[in-house]
């Protein structure tokens, strides 16, 4: 059996970003997607990155995972500089982006085997690891069918599994449950918890505040490219209660709306983008 790498001994900060900036140069001018973000995520945490659509969550994840150049600022992941040592960073992280990145012509098993091979496993070990992961995400039966026929939830779970082939130190999940039915969402939550218990730091973005409340040790709220709140869900709720002198405990929804300057009425009127 293939044994994944040991977790980095003594890794304290899983993610450390200072003054992170991303500008997109488009035909219609420059877009300031991320405007100076500082982050620090400790090893072993489940960290939630919240924000409305277009706030800059995906852009931040892409910079942290070496998929996109950093306009200004620095980022370290698993104690490695993302710009200076992208290849070493890639060995230590797992990534599942907002749009599940799968190849519909392969079967689930083939995709996982290929992924394990790219991370250096031998043929034999890659096969064993694929079987293990198919069990983990409950896709054993579907494993030898083409991905083309998978449901949205199955694709998400397979994408999650493919981010785990090499037992990463830090796992990045961009909106892992958006567009899933409630049952599949709970399955993903369970998996995230299990992965975290095994020692992997999880950095996830979500639009669902309940999800952040349930899963995350600490959260940051980003709005229009800037971090507007950061702390444990509990701390953030208490802060809001004290500031506004509320009697009842506010929900994370209230914290979010307060932080992003949205009222309940305005937020309700916004169309939510759902990506499967």
């Amino acid at each position: 059996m293939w044994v994944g790498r040991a977790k980095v001994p003594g890794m304290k900060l899983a993610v450390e970003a200072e003054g992170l900036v991303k500008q997109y140069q488009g035909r219609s001018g420059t877009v300031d997607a991320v405007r100076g973000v500082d982050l620090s995520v400790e090893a072993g945490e489940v960290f939630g990155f919240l924000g409305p659509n277009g706030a800059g969550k995906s852009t931040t994840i892409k910079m942290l995972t070496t998929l996109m150049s950093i306009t200004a600022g620095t980022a370290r992941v698993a104690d490695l500089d993302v710009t200076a040592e992208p290849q070493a960073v890639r060995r230590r992280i797992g990534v599942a982006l907002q749009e599940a990145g799968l190849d519909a012509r392969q079967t689930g098993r083939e995709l996982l085997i290929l992924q394990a091979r790219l991370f250096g496993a031998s043929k034999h070990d890659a096969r064993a690891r694929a079987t293990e992961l198919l069990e983990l995400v409950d896709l054993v039966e579907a494993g030898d069918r083409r991905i083309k026929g998978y449901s949205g939830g199955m694709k998400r779970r397979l994408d999650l599994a493919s981010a785990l082939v090499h037992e990463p130190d830090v796992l990045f999940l961009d909106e892992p449950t958006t567009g899933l039915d409630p049952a599949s969402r709970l399955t993903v939550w369970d998996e995230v918890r299990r992965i975290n218990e095994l020692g992997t730091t999880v950095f996830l973005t979500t639009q669902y505040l309940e999800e952040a409340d349930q899963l995350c040790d600490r959260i940051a709220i980003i709005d229009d490219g800037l971090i507007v709140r950061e702390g444990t869900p509990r701390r953030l709720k208490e802060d809001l209660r004290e500031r506004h002198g509320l009697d009842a405990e506010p929900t994370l929804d209230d914290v979010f709306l307060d932080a992003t300057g949205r009222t309940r009425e305005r937020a309700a009127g916004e169309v939510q983008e759902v990506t499967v």
Partner: protein
Amino acid sequence: MTALQQANVLGGRALRDSLRTPEAIVPTLFIPMFFLVVNFGQAGRIFTSDSTGFLFGQSYAAFTLPSSLLLAASFGTAALFLIEDIEGGYFDKLRAAPVARTSLVFGWLLAEAVKSAVITVALVLLSLPFGISIASGPLGLVLLIALTAAWAVVFAGFMQLIALKTRSAAATNSGGLIFFPLLFLTPNFVPRDLLTRPMEIAATFNPVTYVMEALRSLILRDFEWVAVSRGFAVVAVLGVVMLVLNVRLIRRYD
């Protein structure tokens, strides 16, 4: 895992996917065969083997076969598969893996090479009834296959640049139309010295001319090393340029 092994693993996947998409392979066999039949059917009586010196005793079909081989090798299907990877997000998954960027370039291109080799063999077999033989023998046939497949990789590699730059299937498809000037500003109907002056100049600057002449010499003559090595040299130089540009684009891909 070395970069070579990674490229091999990615190439295997690309080949498997290609085989699962037969609708993308059929035209690459059918259309070049169609051109061979039409060209031979129209000009076969003008250029007969006993009265035409540049045929070296073979039929006109043998003379025009390289055009068909190069046409088959200039579909650039690899770039369209790459676009699908990009649009579906799978390309990001591969980019996030600790894989040498050169290996990423080669994934679909290796499948293109294998596919091109198989199609070249098929086209040569299909053209045997037209009285074609490979004058340079078995080794010549191997070189013929290798050179055609290498051209397929180079052409698909340049289309891949358009795919990486534009990330648009429409733009990549349009870019592929460059094969018209590339394949027709060549001595494809008659040898270079029989072309009109403007055509001869255009053909001289067109790198495909030298690949075509190399293939043709392998079919019609015993080894003419100058023509053959010139063909390989052109493909090698273009190949290096293609590879360097691809790696640069993938490194800077945002």
